[in-house]
C-alpha cells in the first residue's frame, strides 16, 4: 500500500485587496510515496513545499485534487492518529512547559494515560531537552523549539511523519541528531516525508527525492540512481608540485594545490594516466569515478522546461 498518494492536488491562494487574483502555489501535483520510504521534497524558497504539507495536513483546502494517506482519504479523521507533523518554524503554547506541552499533545493524540508520562520523558530525552523539560516555552530558543517540534511529531508513534525543514535552526550537533533520528525512523519501518533546502542531508537520508519549483513537480528520482550515474570521467589525486606534461596531453583538467594535484580526465584514459604517474614516480592518493551529485540533478531540474517557458509566455500575454 502506498503511504501517500497525491492525486493532482492543486492550490491557488486568492491575493490582492479584494482577494480576487488567484495565485497558483501548487500546480496539479501527482506523487506516490511508498510505505517505509524516506522521501525528500526539495525546492527553492516559495516553491510550494510548505503548501503541499499544509494541504496534506488539512490546514488549507485544495482548489482541486485529492490525496490518500495510509489508504484513507486525507480528511478522514482516522488518518490523524497515525501521522506526525513538524511545521516549519514551529511555535507552541508559550504558557506551557515542554513536558506539559507533550503531555497535552499526547492526550489529544489519544496516547493512553498509562505510560504517557514515561513516553513524554522518553521523547524529551530523545531530542535532548530533558534538562529544560520544566521550563516555560516562552523562554525556549529557536533550536530548542525545533527539537520540541520533532518530539511532538513522533510522540504518538505515528506510522508516517511529515517534517517541514526539520534541520532548520539547529546547531551542527542538532542537525546530526535529526539525521540520526530520521535514520532510526527508517529502521523502525516508518515513512518519512520531509522538505529541505539542504541537499547533502537529502542525499544522505532519502530513498527518493522530488524536486518542486514554482509549484510544479519537476522530477522524482531515486537518490542512489541519480548519484550513481557516472559522467564517464575519473578524478585522480596524487602528490606532485606541477602537472606532468603527459597528463595534459591525455585531456586532463588539472588543478595544483600545495603539493597535491587533482586531475579529472575521461575514463578511457585512466590506465594511460596511471602509466604516466608510474613513469614519473609520483605517489597516487586516490582514484574515483566522477559521479553526478544530487546538486547537479537539482540544478538541472530547476531549469525551465519547454512547457514551463510556454506558460510563462502565456502569462505575460494575458497580463499585457
Amino acid at each position, binding site marked *: 500500500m502506498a503511504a501517500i498518494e497525491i492525486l493532482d492536488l492543486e492550490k491557488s*491562494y486568492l491575493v490582492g485587496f479584494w482577494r480576487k487574483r488567484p495565485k497558483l502555489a501548487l500546480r496539479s501535483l501527482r506523487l506516490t510515496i511508498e510505505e517505509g520510504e524516506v522521501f525528500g521534497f526539495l525546492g527553492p524558497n516559495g516553491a510550494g513545499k510548505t503548501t503541499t504539507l*499544509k494541504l496534506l*495536513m*488539512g*490546514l*488549507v*483546502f485544495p482548489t482541486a485534487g485529492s490525496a490518500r494517506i495510509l489508504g484513507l482519504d486525507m480528511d*478522514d*479523521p*482516522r488518518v*490523524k*492518529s*497515525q*501521522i*506526525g*507533523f513538524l*511545521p516549519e*518554524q*514551529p*511555535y*507552541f*503554547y508559550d*504558557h*506551557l512547559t515542554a513536558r506539559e506541552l507533550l503531555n*497535552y*499533545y499526547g*492526550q*489529544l*493524540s*489519544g496516547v493512553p494515560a498509562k505510560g504517557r508520562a514515561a513516553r513524554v520523558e522518553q521523547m524529551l530525552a530523545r531530542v535532548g531537552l530533558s534538562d529544560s523539560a520544566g521550563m516555560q516555552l516562552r523562554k525556549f530558543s529557536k533550536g530548542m523549539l525545533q527539537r520540541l*517540534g520533532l518530539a*511532538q511529531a513522533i510522540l*504518538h508513534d505515528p506510522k508516517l511523519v*511529515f517534517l517541514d525543514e526539520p534541520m532548520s535552526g539547529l546547531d551542527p550537533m542538532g542537525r546530526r541528531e535529526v539525521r540520526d533520528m530520521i535514520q532510526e525512523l527508517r529502521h523502525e519501518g516508518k515513512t518519512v516525508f520531509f522538505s529541505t533546502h539542504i541537499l547533502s542531508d537529502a542525499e544522505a537520508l532519502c530513498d527518493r527525492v522530488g524536486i518542486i519549483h514554482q509549484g510544479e513537480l519537476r522530477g522524482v528520482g531515486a537518490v542512489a540512481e541519480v548519484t550513481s550515474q557516472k559522467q564517464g570521467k575519473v578524478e585522480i589525486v596524487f602528490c606532485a608540485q606541477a602537472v606532468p606534461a603527459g597528463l595534459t596531453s591525455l585531456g586532463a583538467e588539472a588543478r595544483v594545490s600545495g603539493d597535491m594535484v587533482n586531475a579529472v580526465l575521461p575514463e578511457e584514459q585512466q590506465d594511460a594516466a596511471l602509466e604516466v604517474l608510474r613513469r614519473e614516480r609520483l605517489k597516487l592518493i586516490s582514484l574515483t569515478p566522477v559521479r553526478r551529485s544530487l546538486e547537479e540533478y537539482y540544478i538541472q531540474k530547476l531549469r525551465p522546461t519547454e512547457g514551463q517557458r510556454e506558460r510563462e509566455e502565456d502569462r505575460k500575454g494575458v497580463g499585457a
Partner: protein
Amino acid sequence: MNSGRRNANAGNPNAGNANARIGYIAFNTFREAVRDRVLYNLIAFALLLSGASILVGEISIDVERLVVVNLGLTAVSLFGVVIAIFIGIGLVSKEIDKRTLYTVLSRPVRRWEFVVGKFFGLTGTLVVNTVLMAIGVLLALLYVAHRFEKMDAWVLVALYFIVLQFLIVCALALFFSSFSTPLMSAVFTFALFVIGSLAEDLRGFARITQGVGGWIATAVAYLVPNFSALNVISQVAHGDAVPGRLILYNTLYALLYSAMAISGAVLIFQRRDLK
C-alpha cells in the same frame, strides 16, 4: 451534524473520543488564562468592592444593601464582559496567527472540537472568576448588613444570569472573530452587548413604531441577544424575587443563543484556510 462524524470515528480506538479532547482543550485554555494572569482582575475588583462598602457603611444606614448589591453585581458583570470580549476574540485568531494550531489540528482533533473546547475553556475561566467575585460580593453584603437574609438568595440568581450573559458574549466574540479582525470583533461584540442590554426598550419602541421602521426595529430587537432580560440586578438589589419561569426561560435562551453563535463560528472556521 456531529453525530455523523462521531460515527466515522467509532471504528478507531486510537482516536479516543471527542468529549475527552474538548475537555483537554478547555482545560488548556483555562490554564493559559490563569497563567496569563487573567484572574488578577480580582484584585482590582476586591479593592473596588471593599472601598465601596466601607464608604457606604460610613455614610448611610438604609441603602447600604441596595448600593452594595447594585455596585457589586454591576462590577461582576462588567469585569466579566471585558474579559470575555478580550479573551474571546483572541481565542481562535491568536492560535491562527501564532500557528500554535498547526500541531493541534494535525492531531485527531476536528475543528469544531477545537472551537467548542476553547469556548468551554473561556466560560470555565469566567465561571471561576465569577464565583470568586460572588464570594466578595457576599462578604461585602455581610459586612454592611451583618447577616444574610432570605432575599439574598436572589442575588445568587442574578449572578447566575450574569454567567449566562458571559456565555453569550463569549460565543459572540468567537463568532465575530471567525471572520473579522480582532479589533472589529471587539467593537461588534461590545456594540451587541450594549444594544442587547437595551433589548427590552427596543422591543417597546418596535411595538409603537409603524411601517417599515417598525419591521426593522422588531427584527433588530428580537435578533440581538436579550441581555436586558438577563439583567435583574436592580430588581434583586431591591429585594424583589425572580420568577422561576424567567430562570427557565433565560437558561434556555442563553444556551440556544450561544449554541447558534458557536455553530456559526464553527461553520465559518471549518472552511477556512489557516494562514
